[in-house]
C-alpha cells in the first residue's frame, strides 16, 4: 500500500545548523502519528518539510504516492497551525476561515458555489461549531479555535492533516473533545500527523509515535516509544518530570 506520508532520508540545514538529519518517516493511510520531541528537536522543520515550505538538502517527501507540490495542488494536504501563528484579532468570521479551505476547489476569483457552502456547513456541523459560525475567529475559546481550523481542513476535503500542537493552550475538557474529533477523522480514512508536547493524549489518540531529536530516535506504538527507558535514553529526562520539561 502507498504510504500517506513518506519522508525518506530528509536532511535540512539552516546555514550551519543541522535541523533534520537523515529522517525517515512513513505513515500508512488512516493512521494517526504523534510527533514528539522537545523544543528545537526539529518537529516544526519536519512539518515544514512535509508541507514543502523548506527545501531538503537531501532526501525526498512523497504524499499519497505523489510529490508534495502535486498533493498540495490537489488540496490533499490540510494544515492546522499553532495558536501563536494565528492573528486572532483578524476580522474574519469562523465561517470565513472554514470557507478558505474551499479556495482550492473554486475558480480564480474564489466565489463560493452552493457546493462550497454545503461543504462549509457540513464541516462546521462535524466540528460542532454551527452555532458559532458567525463569530469573529478570536471570539472563540482555545478548543473551539482549534476545531475551526480542523473544520477548514475538513471543508478542504484534505486526506492528510498536519496538526501543529493541537492541544497547546486548551483546557482538559476541550482536549478530550479534540481527541474525539481527530479519532472520528481517522475512522473516515484521514491520515494525521500530530506534533504535541502533551504526552497524556498520545496513547489515547495515536496509533504510532515518532520521537524526534534531529534524527528519528524511536518510531513505533505509543507504549513502546513512551517507555521510560526510551525517553531517558533520548533526552536524559525522567518521565515524572516530563510534563514540566516538555511544556516549556
Amino acid at each position: 500500500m502507498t504510504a500517506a506520508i513518506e519522508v525518506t532520508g530528509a536532511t535540512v540545514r539552516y546555514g550551519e545548523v543541522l535541523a533534520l538529519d537523515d529522517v525517515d518517516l512513513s505513515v500508512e493511510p488512516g493512521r494517526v502519528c504523534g510527533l514528539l520531541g522537545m523544543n528545537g528537536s526539529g518537529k516544526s522543520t519536519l512539518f515544514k518539510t512535509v508541507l514543502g515550505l523548506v527545501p531538503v538538502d537531501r532526501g525526498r517527501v512523497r504524499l499519497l504516492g505523489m510529490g508534495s507540490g502535486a498533493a498540495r495542488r490537489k488540496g490533499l494536504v490540510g494544515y492546522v497551525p499553532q495558536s501563536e501563528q494565528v492573528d486572532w484579532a483578524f476580522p474574519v468570521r469562523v465561517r470565513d476561515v472554514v470557507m478558505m479551505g474551499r479556495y482550492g476547489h473554486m475558480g480564480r476569483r474564489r466565489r463560493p458555489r452552493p457546493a462550497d457552502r454545503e461543504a462549509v456547513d457540513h464541516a462546521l456541523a462535524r466540528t460542532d461549531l454551527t452555532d458559532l459560525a458567525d463569530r469573529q475567529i478570536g471570539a472563540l475559546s482555545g478548543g473551539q479555535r482549534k476545531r475551526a481550523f480542523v473544520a477548514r481542513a475538513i471543508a478542504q476535503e484534505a486526506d492528510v492533516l498536519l496538526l501543529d500542537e493541537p492541544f497547546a493552550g486548551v483546557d482538559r475538557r476541550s482536549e478530550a473533545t479534540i481527541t474525539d474529533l481527530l479519532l472520528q477523522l481517522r475512522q473516515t480514512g484521514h491520515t494525521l500527523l500530530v506534533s504535541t508536547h502533551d504526552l497524556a493524549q498520545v496513547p489515547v489518540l495515536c496509533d504510532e509515535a515518532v520521537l524526534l531529536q534531529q534524527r528519528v530516535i524511536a518510531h513505533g506504538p505509543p507504549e513502546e516509544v513512551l517507555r521510560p527507558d526510551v525517553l531517558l535514553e533520548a533526552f536524559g529526562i525522567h518521565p515524572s518530570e516530563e510534563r514540566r520539561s516538555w511544556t516549556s
Partner: protein
Amino acid sequence: MDVLMAVVEWFAVPMRFEFVQRALLVSVVAGVVCAVLSCWMTLVGWSLMGDAVSHAVLPGVVLSYMFGMPFALGALVFGGGSVALIGVVNRTSRVKEDAVIGVVFTAMFALGLVMISRVPSQTDLSHILFGNVLGVSDADILQVLILAAVVLAVVWYKHRDLTMYAFDPVHAHAIGVNPRLLETLLLGLLSVTVVVALQAVGIILVVAMVIIPGATAYLLTDRFERMLLISAAIAVVAAVAGVFTSFHLNVSTGGCIVLSQAVAFTLAYLFSPRQGLLWRGRAVRALRARGRGTRVLD
C-alpha cells in the same frame, strides 16, 4: 435657515471653481483606492513598507519629468525596484527587515533629492513632495483614473486570495497557492496606489493614506467586507472635508485631507463601540468597582 444657507454656501462657493472640482475628483478617487488597499496593509503589518515605497519612488518621478514621460512609469519602476531590493538584501544579510527598509528608502529618497537639484524647475519639487492637487493637469487626472481603475479591478478580482494571504500564508501554500506571488501582487498594487495618491497629497503624506483609513475601520468592525466599505467611506469624507477646508482657510490641501483622516482615527480610537478607549476604560472601571478582574481587555 441662515445656518443651513451658510453650510450650503460653504460647499457651493468653492464648487464654482473648476480647479476645486478637479481637486475633489482626484482626492476622492485617490482616497478610495488608498483606503481599499490600506485594509490589507493594516492587517499584514506593512505600514513601514508603505512609507518605504512612497519615498523610494522619488528618483523615478524626477527621471520621468526629465524625459517628459508619464511619471507613473518611473515611479512604478523605482517603487517595484526598491521593494525587490529590500527583499534581496533582507534574504542575503543578517540585517533585520525594518533596518533594510530604512536603508533602502532613505537612500532612494536621497538619490531623488540629488537628482532633483539638477532639474531646472525647482517649483516641481514641492509639488512632488507635498502634492499639488489644486493644479492637476488633464493628463494627471487621466493617469489617476486609469491607475485607480486598474488597482480596483485587480483587487476586486483577487480580494479573497489577498485576504487569505494576509490571514494565513501557510494555508495558501498548503492548498497550492503561492503566497510569494500574492505578496508580490500586493506590493505591486501598493506601488501603483502610491503613484495615484502622490497627486493628491504628495510623497511625504502618501503613507497616511495607505494606513489611516484601514486602521480606523479596523477599530470599528470585525468583518473584513465592512472594513473595506468603512475605510473607503472615511477616505471620501476626509477628501471632501480636506479639500473644502483647505479652500476656505487657504492652507495645504494634502495636509487637510490627512488631518481629516487623523480626526476620523482619533474619533474611532476614543469612541468605537467595542474597541474605543472610553468604553473600554468605563467597562474596566465598572468591573473594578464590582471587585472583578480586568478580563474585558483580553
